[in-house]
């Protein structure tokens, strides 16, 4: 009854979750964590030919305080992992992570003592992008997938407490967490 009156007066009604999620998913400001060659493709994604601004993500912010999604584009070494994590920690909630390319997702061709074999060992990754480096279309696809995920998140009830819907776990990590040194995946990929 009341709703009908509102609609007759020119108002639309929706769930608050849907409205907030709609606003969030269409203004995902990236933190361009360009660490190596994948960053070139990330820059190409921002160029007019591929035009990431079609998805509301053209605002590459170089301060983590203004970012929603961190695009980790490149090889992450153990020495760099502390820096990446520090910048991620400085981003305000809610925040998401795209792991761009083979190196960030799995260590890629750098099967070596110095390269982290997948950034999901120290970051909660939302979307992995395959490729070495991925095409810009590939990164845009990851962004669209992330938008789908953001659209389905529960927002109002968890404004203070964001829990990721899905954290990829690796068998080695599960094994590592069973043993005494839980949470430390440094040598787990051996």
């Amino acid at each position, binding site marked *: 009854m009341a709703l009908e009156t509102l609609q007759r007066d020119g108002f639309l009604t929706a769930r608050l979750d849907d409205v907030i999620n709609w606003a969030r998913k269409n203004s995902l400001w990236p933190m361009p964590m360009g660490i190596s060659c994948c960053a070139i493709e990330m820059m190409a994604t921002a160029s007019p030919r591929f035009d990431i601004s079609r998805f509301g993500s053209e605002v590459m912010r170089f301060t983590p305080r203004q970012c929603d999604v961190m695009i980790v584009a490149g090889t992450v070494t*153990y*020495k760099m*992992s*502390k820096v990446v*994590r*520090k910048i991620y920690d400085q981003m305000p909630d809610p925040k998401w992570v795209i792991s761009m390319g083979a190196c960030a997702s799995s260590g890629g061709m750098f*099967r*070596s*003592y*110095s390269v*982290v074999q997948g950034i*999901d*060992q*120290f*970051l*909660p990754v939302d979307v992995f992008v395959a490729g070495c480096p991925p095409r810009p279309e590939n990164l845009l696809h990851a962004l669209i997938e992330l938008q789908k995920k953001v659209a389905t998140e529960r927002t109002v009830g968890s404004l203070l407490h964001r829990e990721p819907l899905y954290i990829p776990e690796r068998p080695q990590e599960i094994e590592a967490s069973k043993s005494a*040194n839980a*949470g*430390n*995946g*440094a*040598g*787990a*990929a*051996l």
Partner: protein
Amino acid sequence: MNQLIIDRLQAQFPSSIRGSEEFRGDLTVTVRTADIVAVAKFLKEDPALAFDMIIDICGVDRLRDTERFEVVYTLYSLAHKQYLRLKVLASEETPVVPSVTAVWPGANWHERETFDMFGIKFSGHPDLRRLYMPEEFEYHPLRKDFPLMGIPDSLPLPRR
């Protein structure tokens, strides 16, 4: 030119030169470890040689019982357009080589890299810290007995 280098070094340092070899025109001179600074200084300051540029300093792990490590210096003479390779040897028990930073300041980071990767110490170096690996790392990754995928838990990751 190569013969000139050998002749002048032999005349100046008869007891410091352990040997030399030539491969396709490239001369390699092996020097007694304790005398590397004096030889380097002479090679740089002698006008007939004038090796004024240090191209690279690297380490080699031969993984043998005596004198396990080699340090290889690649020099270049801008005046004579001539390359020269110097080698010194170091043992596993006391892997110490005198630093040549006083002769070529550009040797600073090359020696830090060699120290980082092989654990060869350069005595007299002004700032012998690791170059690549985190400072708290305990191992030297380019040694032949270091496993390719590293030592478990030697490089801590941030907590997820």
